[in-house]
Every structure is written in structure tokens, then in C-alpha cells.
């Protein structure tokens, strides 16, 4: 029997979970005292999760010695960009009402903001060049360019780390996961 969805489509649907869960909260009017902050943090958290998921494809490939994972990397990577964009847009629009002066001031003066902005800007070329066609056009440069995801991952963790007041548990957890995903690459490369 032919399945209704391809695995690829299934991943796509599952990757929409952060949208579904926030809509559920919205429809049930279940936000806490600070809904704007909740929305921003929700998409910030999911951006980090999708960075981790995207980075886990290569180690998975090597551990399982199978290429079936490869097509998911693009989907997960594009979702990373999607959620990072909603995260940024909610900061700009919902929280700061497009007050560009204030947003610019914050970006210049405060490192957690500019690190986040830089991380998003670096995601843009990766999203633009995500197609098969671009991969063919850019050849080796495509791989070089897409190594930016390592920088983006580190900036993403710093962004979180510099935001929290005192309890650094959460950013440290993301940092550790990303660190392990980096180490797995080095290990396999040596072998």
C-alpha cells in the first residue's frame, strides 16, 4: 500500500508543531501575564531546537551509514530560518511596534540583540541558496557557505546566554547539545 505521505512530507508537517502549539494557546486564550514575551521566547526556543535538529543530520548519517536523512536537512534548515524570522519579527513588530530608532539603539548598544540580528542575517544567504539548483551552481562554495551554520549556532547560544538574568541552565543545555554535535563531526572526520 502506498503511504498517504512521503517521509519528507511527514517531517514537514511535524515541523509545523511550534505554529500549532502557539495557535492552540492563542485560541484557548491560555497565554500568561506577558503574551508578547511568550511569543518571542517560543519562537526563539524553537529556532535553537531546529538548529540542533539540522546539525544532527550529518552525525546521524555517519552513525547509521545511511543517506536517507539527507533530504531532511534542507527542510529542517529552512524551518530554522522560518522560526528565526518569526522570532525577529515579533521582537520588531509586536514588542517594539516598528520603532526603528529604539530597535537600532538596542542593536547597537546591547550585545544580546546584535548577536541575534547577526545570526539571523547569516541565515539569509543559507535560505536563499538552499535549492538544488543553487547547490549545483555554487559547487564547492556551497559547502563552504553552508558552514556558516556552525557560526550561527554559536551566536544563537550566546544570544540566549546574554539575555538571561542569572539562571543560565537553559542556554548552557543548548550549548552542550551543540557542542556534542560539533564533536561528533570531528570524531567522524578523523576516522
Amino acid at each position, binding site marked *: 500500500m502506498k503511504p498517504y505521505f512521503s517521509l519528507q512530507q511527514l517531517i514537514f508537517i511535524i515541523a509545523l508543531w511550534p505554529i500549532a502549539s502557539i495557535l492552540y494557546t492563542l485560541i484557548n486564550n491560555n497565554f*500568561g*501575564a*506577558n*503574551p*508578547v*514575551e511568550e511569543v518571542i521566547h517560543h519562537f526563539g526556543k524553537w529556532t535553537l531546537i531546529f538548529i540542533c535538529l539540522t546539525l544532527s543530520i550529518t552525525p546521524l548519517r555517519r552513525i547509521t551509514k545511511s543517506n536517507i536523512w539527507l533530504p531532511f536537512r534542507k527542510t529542517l534548515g529552512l524551518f530554522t530560518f522560518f522560526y528565526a524570522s518569526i522570532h525577529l519579527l515579533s521582537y520588531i513588530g*509586536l*514588542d*517594539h*511596534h516598528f*520603532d526603528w530608532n*529604539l530597535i537600532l*539603539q*538596542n542593536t547597537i*548598544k*546591547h*550585545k*544580546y*540583540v546584535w548577536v541575534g540580528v547577526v545570526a539571523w542575517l547569516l541565515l539569509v544567504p543559507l535560505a536563499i541558496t538552499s535549492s538544488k539548483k543553487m547547490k549545483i551552481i555554487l559547487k564547492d562554495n556551497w559547502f563552504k557557505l553552508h558552514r556558516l551554520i556552525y557560526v550561527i549556532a554559536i551566536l544563537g547560544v550566546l544570544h540566549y546566554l*546574554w*539575555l538571561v*538574568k*542569572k*539562571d543560565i541552565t537553559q542556554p548552557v543545555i543548548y550549548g552542550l547539545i551543540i557542542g556534542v554535535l560539533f564533536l561528533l563531526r570531528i570524531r567522524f572526520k578523523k576516522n
Partner: protein
Amino acid sequence: MKKILSSEITPEHIYQNRRSFIKSAAAGTASLMLGSFFSLSASSNTSSSEKLTSYKDITTYNNYYEFGTDKEDPSNNSGKFKISPWSITIEGEVEQAKTFSIEQIIKNFPSEERIYRLRCVEGWSMVIPWMGFSLSNLLKTVSPTSKAKFVEFISVYRPEEMIGQQSKILDWPYREGLRLDEAMHPLTIMATGLYGKNLPSQNGAPIRLVVPWKYGFKSAKAIVKIRLVENIPISSWMNASPAEYGFYSNVNPNVDHPRWSQATERRIGDSFFDPRRPTEMFNGYANEVSNLYKGMDLRKYY
């Protein structure tokens, strides 16, 4: 602890209505009498959009690291906390040190309603109808000596009841401090209630400090000891991150936190699509308190 009958508790909507009365009454008065039954500072220079934050939001969105670092943690984790029996000791540079039971405090220092803005250092704010009394009334009973220059507040340390104290996120017990003149200022209160009810545990029961022109963390909760001292006390937050949290911590839109802006704030309870509000100097209490800091470089003494 004095029991309040449920019939005595003012429902939230009446509180909201009462505020409109307060505002119209205040409009007719050129200046506000501090220490009168209603301290109207929250309405003294603000627009009609400044309504009380809901009881639900005030009691479920808290920074109270003794019960955990998430905003919902204090309301979820404070169920085991015992607020009775409770006593509070006032000692140090005083003629006569004293210990009061919470019952004595409530009997000897009648509560009045104080509607104050609360501005958190994180960039959000509320408007809270506290029940409390001026701290100066309490301090006068022990007669501070001429050596008393500062007041140190020490919160309770009970890691078995306060799950957050089981990790070393701050140097427990929580400590805060004020200059003596700040502590004696009529706006500075000890609060024992809000919305006409006893203070819930997550808001610092049974007794807490409220200093409305300073960032919220200055207003120590669940206080067991007040010490009058000669030298500047080191607070828990100064100890944790001296470059970020100074002794004064006055609300000031012109002096940013090293990591984020203090120019604006999000008012809890505002709708999804409301903008942030500009933060006011001394949280809107400049008329009342700016003379305390005359000639001081507020950038240096942050």
C-alpha cells in the same frame, strides 16, 4: 494572622471603579498628601490608561528565585511555605532592638492601601494595590542611633520549604539594602497584603518591603530581619553581578542595564498589540524622591 472575611475582600472590579474615583478626586487636589489613607502616586501624573494589574497576573507572574527562576514557579512552588508563626527582628545601630510577631505588626501598624507602580529591572511593569504601612513607623520604634546610615533587609532562609534555595543561584538568604533616608521616606512601605487580601506567599508573605521608585528586586520579600548599619550593605544582586546591579537601582530610563535597554517597559495586562510604554524617571515618583539624590551622578550610583 488576622483573618479577613471573604465578605470584607474588595472584588477586583470595585477596585478598578474605586480608582476612577481616586483619579477624579486627585485631579481636584493640587498636591497629594503623602501618608494619607490613599497614597495616590500611581495616578498623580499618569493617563487614564493606567489601570490596576489583575490579581491573577500579580500572583502568577513573579520573580522570586527562592521558589524557582521561571515566572510561574513562585505561584506553583510556594504551597508548602509556612508563614505562621513569623517574627521580624530589628537590630543593629538602634537604642533598643526589638522583635515583633507578625500579629503585633498587624495590630500596631495599621495597613492602608498604597497603589504603586512596580517596574522590574527586566523591562516589565505592573500597577499593584498594596496594603501596608510606612517603614518609618516601624523604624522609629527602635530609635536608630546616629551611627545608623543604612538599613539592611534579610529575607527568610528555609531551603526545605523554598525549593529555589536548594541551588546556589543567589547567595542565600536574600539581602537588600537602603540608605536610611530612603528607608524613612513615606513612600517606602512594608506590605502585608494586596487587593485587600493577605499577601500571597508568591508575593512575599507575610511581610515584604515595597520601594516603588526602585527596580522590583530592591523590594525584598518574606523579611525576618532588619538591621540598621553604619556601612553600605552588600545586597544579593550586587554580590551576584556587581557591574549590573548597584546599591541604588533607581528606575532610570537614561541608564541602561549593561545588557538591555531601560528606556521602555511592557505593562503586564496590556493587549497583544499595545506598544511598550516609556519608562519614567524614578518610576514616575520623581516629584517625591528626586531630592534624595540631589547632586549625585546617577550613572555612577546606579
